[in-house]
């Protein structure tokens, strides 16, 4: 009976997808800045589906993330109780105010995932979808299901302790903003399907693994509490395999959080919870993965035999391409801005190392015994020679902003000012047992 039900729900979900087509609002922006002003909430509506079946009577929550600490309590925004209808629909018509710029996410808890009994309820049910900034969610249709939940939890994992506690430090709003953006790489929130609208061309999403985790969550979501109270046996099983240091979870989001944060947890047991045939999200794994980590593979932007990688304060990723004498710049969501051949300014040549300075501009060590200093947009700042460079192998930037290079060619160190002036002589700094060093780090 249970399996049957799931199939019906899958059909319904397909119908809903069609219904949403044409609404046009199928992605969530996450580029707005945090602010303190409060604006009246725009109307929000959508559906809550569990295991591809509508969840009725689910309680809706709208949260703004905290900026007072990692995993700090979110701010609940709704001013009245909103529940889903029998078709799993909900509508929030301005029943909240929203701090301008705040990152918000929506959570559905409890509810009846489509059983015959009208009063049945699944108290373990919790699903979510990360939305983005308040100002960007107007008119958005939201399809909350296990996929939006997995995408949201895994992207926001470093910032989450529970569905009601998502927060970052005051100095890392960019980090959580980027994390919200990543959700859109994985899932299209408006439809509740993969991939996300922003996933770069050529990127590979681990859809099978995501489906598998969604299916695992659905084993609980698609059940109701036992008569007389208590989680369903499926939920209890799920929770028993997804503990954290504080114990077993009591809702499915918490279970997901625990998995994302302990990716090697109960790989086999959890995999065995799902039936390959009856799982609502397909394809799914039939054997355990090596971990519950979700990894996306990006290509393009000139990537070619990459030898070194570094991130900057905006979340951009810089890669030194030894294969084509270039540097690739990927955005925080993996979108290349370095063209198809990478940045090549400044005689980049078989680069071996890259470091981003405090100003966010990259320094690249070239095999030609030179350094290339680019701007954040990949144009040349300076081309540096001298200072004893000899087969440079590593770059580090000290607290003064000076550039340090390990020279594998002659076992020396070179030092340059942030302006590119050599501080070391042509013989470099020697001694200390340097022996064709390949890496360098500063405290």
């Amino acid at each position, binding site marked *: 009976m249970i399996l049957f039900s799931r199939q019906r729900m899958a059909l319904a979900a397909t119908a809903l997808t069609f219904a949403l087509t044409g609404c046009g609002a199928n992605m969530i922006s996450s580029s707005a800045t945090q602010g303190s002003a409060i604006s009246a909430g725009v109307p929000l509506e959508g559906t809550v589906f569990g295991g591809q079946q509508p969840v009725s009577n689910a309680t809706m929550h709208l949260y703004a993330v905290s900026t007072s600490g990692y995993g700090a309590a979110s701010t609940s925004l709704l001013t009245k109780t909103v529940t889903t209808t029998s078709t799993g629909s909900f509508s929030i018509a301005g029943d909240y105010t929203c701090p301008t710029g705040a990152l918000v996410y929506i959570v559905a808890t409890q509810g009846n995932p489509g059983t015959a009994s009208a009063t049945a309820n699944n108290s373990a049910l919790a699903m979510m979808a990360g939305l983005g900034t308040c100002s960007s969610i107007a008119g958005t249709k939201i399809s909350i299901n296990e996929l939006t939940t997995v995408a949201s939890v895994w992207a926001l994992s470093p910032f989450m302790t529970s569905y009601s506690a998502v927060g970052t430090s005051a100095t890392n709003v960019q980090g959580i903003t980027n994390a919200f953006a990543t959700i859109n790489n994985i899932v299209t929130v408006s439809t509740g399907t993969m991939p996300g609208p922003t996933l770069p061309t050529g990127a590979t999403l681990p859809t099978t693994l995501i489906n598998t985790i969604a299916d695992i969550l659905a084993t609980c979501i698609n059940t109701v509490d036992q008569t007389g109270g208590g989680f369903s046996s499926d939920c209890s099983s799920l929770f028993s395999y997804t503990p954290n240091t504080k114990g077993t979870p009591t809702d499915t989001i918490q279970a997901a959080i625990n998995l994302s944060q302990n990716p090697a947890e109960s790989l086999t047991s959890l995999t065995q919870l799902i039936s390959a045939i009856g799982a609502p999200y397909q394809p799914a794994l039939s054997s355990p993965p090596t971990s519950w980590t979700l990894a996306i593979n990006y290509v393009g932007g000139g990537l070619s035999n990459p*030898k070194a990688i570094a991130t900057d304060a905006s979340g951009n990723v810089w890669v030194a391409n030894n294969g084509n004498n270039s540097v690739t710049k990927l955005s925080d969501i993996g979108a290349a801005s370095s063209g198809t051949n990478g940045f090549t300014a400044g005689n980049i040549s078989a680069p071996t190392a890259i470091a981003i300075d405090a100003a966010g501009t990259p320094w690249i060590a070239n095999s030609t015994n030179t350094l290339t200093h680019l701007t954040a947009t990949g144009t040349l700042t300076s081309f540096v020679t001298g200072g004893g460079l000899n087969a440079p192998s590593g770059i580090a930037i000290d607290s003064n902003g000076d550039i340090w290079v390990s020279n594998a060619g002659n076992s020396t160190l070179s030092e340059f000012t942030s302006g590119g002036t050599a501080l070391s002589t042509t013989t470099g700094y020697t001694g200390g047992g340097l022996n064709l060093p390949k890496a360098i780090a500063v405290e």
Partner: protein
Amino acid sequence: MKNFQKAFCCAFFFPVLAMSGSVFAQTGRGPVPSRIVNSVDNDRVTRLEGNTHPFARPEFDQGMVAAQMPMTHMLLVLQRSPEQETALDQLMAQQMDRSSANYHHWLTPTQFGQQFGASDADVTQVTGWLQSQGLTVDKVSTGRVTIEFSGPASQVQAAFHTEIHNYLVNGEAHFANASDPSIPEALTPVVAGVASLNNFFPKPQLREGRRVHRDPRTGAITPVDDGATGPDADFTRTNSSGYTIQDVTPYDFATIYNLLPLWNSTPAINGAGQTIAIAGESAINTADVTAFQAAFGLPSNTLTSIYPNGNPGIDKNNVEEQELDVEWAGATAPGATIVLVAEATPSSGSTAGFQLAAQYVIDNVETVKATILSESYGNCEQSLGTTGNQALNTLWQQGAAEGISIFGSAGDEGSAGCDSSSVHSLNPSTKGLNVNGISSSPYITAVGGTDLNWQTATLGSAGATSPYWSTTNASGTQATALGYIPEVAWNATCTDPYMVTFFSAASAEANCNSLAKMTNGLSNLAYITGGSGGVSACTTVSSRGVCSGGYAKPSWQSGTGVPADGKRDVPDVSLFAGSGLPDGIPGSSYLICFSGTGGAPCTYSNSSDVTFQEVGGTSVSAPAMAGIMALIQQKMGGPQGLANPILYQLAAAETNLAACNSSTVTNGNSCVFYDTTSGTNAMVCTSGDPNCTVNTAGDKYGVLSGYSAGTGYDLTTGLGSVNAFNLVKAWSAVPSPTMTFTIPNKTYGAAPFTVAASSNSTGTITYNLISGPATISGATVTITGTGTVTIEAFQAPSGGFLAGSITTSFTVSPVATSVTWSPSTTTLFAGNAIGTGILDASGSVAGTIAYTATLGSGTPTTITSTSTLAQVGVYTLTATLTPTNINDATSSTTINLTVTSAYIWAVNPAGSISEFYGNSPVTSSAVSGGGIGAAVDNGNNLWTINAGGNSLAEFNSSNALIKAGITGGGISGATNLAIDGSGAIWLVNSNNSVSVVSNGSAFTPSTGYTGGNMSSPSAVAIDISGNVWISNSGNNSVTEILGAAAPVVPTATAVKNGTLGARP
């Protein structure tokens, strides 16, 4: 033993000399530099012009003197360097400037000699030369103004390249040099000349009246000497013509000039405690003084005598002068001590005894204790000659610098200073206008003469009662004066307006020509007698006797009536100087007691025969004024120096001159001076002689253009006579000027500029450089360097204000420079050499640049490019430019240098690490462990993968291996590592997996994390959202593990902020 003692003695003696030399240097002025630089060569001589006496003329020449004739008391006059003159002028101005530290800071004679005399070496040179010429050096004056020497005429002639001849002039035998003397050229920087080589001496400036006696019973006065010349007189007598003679006793004088309120005040201002020196040439009969005081009710004061060169005895030519000096100085200051300092004038001498006596007083002021000096001699400037004038001027200047108030007779020759007043028969002037050079110096107060003019009111009315005199003598004092009596210029000759009226003549010229025809002598008034005055115009005399020069007008000599002649004018002040008039003419005279030559002893004690001597002249007014000065000095409590600056300012303060006109002023006035406005010192002269004006054709005699009394100052009576009470009272009230003086600060290189002080006084302001890098010429300052310049504005006394001064300072700033600093870096590792890249400052001008480093608010330390800074922190580096040009300003610029303490690790693939601290290795050799990748955590520990890639090592910042090998978690052929915000180490394995080590142990399963199409991962990085990024060298891709790590601060930012391995 004896020799040893002698040597020891000498050795001991020299250090004492040396010590005294150093004490001298400590007075603030270094030893005077010597000025005689060339060797003395008797064949290279300089002729001293204007030192031949006017009477040394062929018509008087009696031939050369005997070669062996002794000559004594010759004075070699020394002169100061221009620098000394300037310094002395400045000091003397300051002595009269209340705002100066040197106000009334009088010098001792020794100080004067040390500061303003010739150097020891120069004196030795000069005295050595005199001795080499066979002459004897008798005395070098303490003030080093003269050297007295003597020797036979032959040696004098040889030494000075002249001849000494005998001359017979008007029956008097003299010797004199026949031509201007010469001295060796080498000595001229120091030697001004030889004061005189003749014995034409100054004459006492007294005019003797009659010797009279009074019958104390009847009061009848009869002349004792009814001689053929001179007037009869008494002090209350009606003569045969029925006209009254009114003589002046001390109490008469005190009544007329208002001394009595001073004498009678409590305490009495009568000269008590003050000492007046009389410079003279004769001893006196002190019994005369006692008798004088007893007769006229004066107390018996203290009289002492000093004979520096032996008792001169009673000298008939000078004894009466000295007695009147002593008696009348004491008569106006009855409480003062009178010191007679007398030195004889031997016939062999070339310098008058009174001058040597005055020099003694001035050279020994500390022992004589007289700060008031009076002399009553006269010799015109022309007769004194160039050097003679210099000798006196420099002597009086020394005295003034010592605080001595010096008074001298202006002279009794009217305007005919070179003619004789001692001839009382026909004796018209033949030598023209001249002044008495002994008192024409600016450093002496020239006291002129007035006559009492009470007769005009009774003229032609025989027996009329004068309103000015009582008809009976006051008991005890014999005084009859009732109060102030109008005064006119003293002139006892035919040119006197009173005489012209008396004799009913049409004019002075007519009167003189008429009287000149009288032969009985009694009424022959065509001679020279009257208060002297005129313009100093003959301090320099040419070898032909032509006058030039004259003392420049002193700054203090200004005011109504003072001629704008640029010259010193005399007299300064006048007092009664009458000696009576010829028989039959009403008049007045001073009385003295004089029992000297030619009469009966002064016998006031003999009630049956009281005898008096009438006497007058500026000989009396000078000591009388000296006595008044003693009252001032007593009131002020100390020496006042030259009286003139204050006398003139007191006069200037008297704005209502008309109220003090001596002809109309009444008793009870507030006048300090009684302005004499009538009378003249014009004298009869012979037609055709210099300055002689003849208005009526055929007249044999004319009138020598002289000077008439007028409003304010005039060249007959100066400022007039004084109301002593008002004078003493006003003395201290002369205000100092209120001056303001500022000069804005300058920058070196500024153009010369003028300065100007302002003042409520109109006195001339002169500017002196006190200190600092500048020169001043007039009011124009030229800057010569940088620093503080102090300039004094000195204002001469004028218009009722004393001298004043004010100093101001301004700063001359160096020219601004700048230092430009563009260091290659502003950061440095602690302990690393600073390097030339940081210390690269350059100056805007040439110079040296020095650097200092200051940590926080600490003490600056000098640094060079090789210096190291051990402590971490932000240092202020200062580059200071010291320009080569001293007039360029030092400038500095600072930068901040951040010194950090940081370790750098390099990882060697062979399996070791090398740690550096800045550019210096921490250890000389590598430390085993690690070898692949390098990452530093929040504890500043280094994580690196051991060679082979299968385990992870941890080192602390002291280069110690903490964890040798962490394995597990799938670590396998790891190629790189990164640290997340929780300190977890992320490794990428060559088997396309990721391992995590957290809290020191593997976190990942044995397979590590896989997926994401990892392929030969080459590097790993964590982002701010907790995503793990892996570069795949195997498939040209990047893998992102979503949210698996703790967000981490980007590496460079973390290093900078100390947040490595921490969450943002």
